[in-house]
């Protein structure tokens, strides 16, 4: 089981089964990246592995932003700002798979496979996979392909027993969120409240629970 209570605060977040996928949907224009980073950093602190899929930041900057004390063999990065599909190892030993664009779904899939293989070889059977901004993929490939991709990646994470966190930026319509949300186990809407970060679960039919404080997303920055 995965415990995300330190990051998300909700009762249901205490025991999330292997393979659970969460959509972290920002509602007020705040970059959803920080929520994804908080989920991954929390896992790293608990000795779990992490795979970070970064759309708009190079691997090294994305790793810096992760803000955790990262052991290189615990973290892999898929960098969507490469020039072609390549694999490399940074000076500190972190594995990076690059793809030329966030619309290269096959490349991201190959990268994810390579990262999971590498983490398994390093003895990790638990970990979290974070997509910084799934909205970039949605914008690039369209709703249908993005939905199918999310569904297939979720199935793969279920087989691997990893947890998935998919950041989604604000401009995407409520309908689009509901459609994409069907590919994930839960959608959590997030915003910056007067007292700090707040979240609520998005129900079916677009109804949502009440806003409540979310503990740790802010403190990692």
């Amino acid at each position, binding site marked *: 089981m995965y415990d995300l209570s330190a990051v998300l605060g909700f009762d249901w977040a205490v025991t999330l089964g292997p393979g659970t996928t969460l959509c972290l949907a920002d509602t007020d224009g705040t970059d959803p990246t920080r929520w994804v980073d908080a989920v991954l950093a929390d896992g790293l602190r608990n000795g779990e592995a992490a795979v970070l899929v970064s759309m708009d930041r190079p691997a090294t900057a994305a790793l810096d932003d992760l803000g955790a004390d990262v052991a290189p063999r615990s973290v892999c990065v898929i960098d969507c700002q490469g020039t072609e599909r390549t694999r490399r190892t940074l000076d500190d030993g972190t594995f990076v798979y690059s793809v030329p664009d966030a619309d290269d779904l096959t490349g991201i899939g190959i990268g994810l496979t390579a990262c999971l293989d590498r983490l398994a070889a390093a003895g990790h059977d638990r970990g979290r996979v974070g997509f910084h901004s799934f909205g970039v993929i949605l914008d690039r490939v369209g709703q*249908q*392909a993005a939905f199918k991709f999310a569904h297939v990646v979720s199935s*793969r994470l279920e087989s691997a027993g990893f947890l998935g966190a998919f950041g989604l930026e604000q401009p995407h319509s409520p*309908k689009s969120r509901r*459609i994409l949300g069907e590919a994930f186990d839960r959608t959590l809407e997030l915003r910056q409240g007067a007292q700090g970060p707040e979240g609520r679960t998005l129900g*079916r039919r677009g109804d949502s629970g009440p806003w409540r404080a979310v503990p740790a997303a802010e403190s990692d920055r």
Partner: protein
Amino acid sequence: MAPSDPVVLIVEDEPDVAETYRLWLEDSYTVETARNGDEGLDKLDESVDVVLLDRMMPGLSGDEVLEHIREQGIDCRVAMVTAVEPDFDILEMGFDAYLSKPVKSDALDETVENLLERSTYDSLLQEYYALVEKRATLEASKNAAELDDNEEYERLKERLGELREDLSETLGGIEDDEEFIATIRNIDDN
């Protein structure tokens, strides 16, 4: 074979080998053969479900035929038949499976069956998306009470539940790397 059987196209320049494959497959599938890459492309249309493609052929090679298939966006699954086990990263290649020569009857059966299962998965996923989209449209246009009274909405929910189950049972829930990549490649290509 019956007209409704899945169609397998064998592209192979050695007639004896092609005939052997045909004998193994024709009880369960409609089998077409082509003696080289050009003929293979001529015979390839939307009716073909699986292509068995010899990699080394005079004229158009298997790799070139595969490139044409992908470029034209023809919706079929391709198993490359190779003389030696590929030493390249097969995930990076565009084909869906490979078979090493000499191909055995059970390996051929298993590969074709698996590729057809992947096509089934793709179709289920397509239907699943279409219904999720339809449900979201209904949810956006009706209030909760209207939805409760809506028979179409109830049927949609039921069918979506069945599809979720079918998807998780097909391909064992995508636990194999090759199946994972081939499924995504199909999303990318369409």
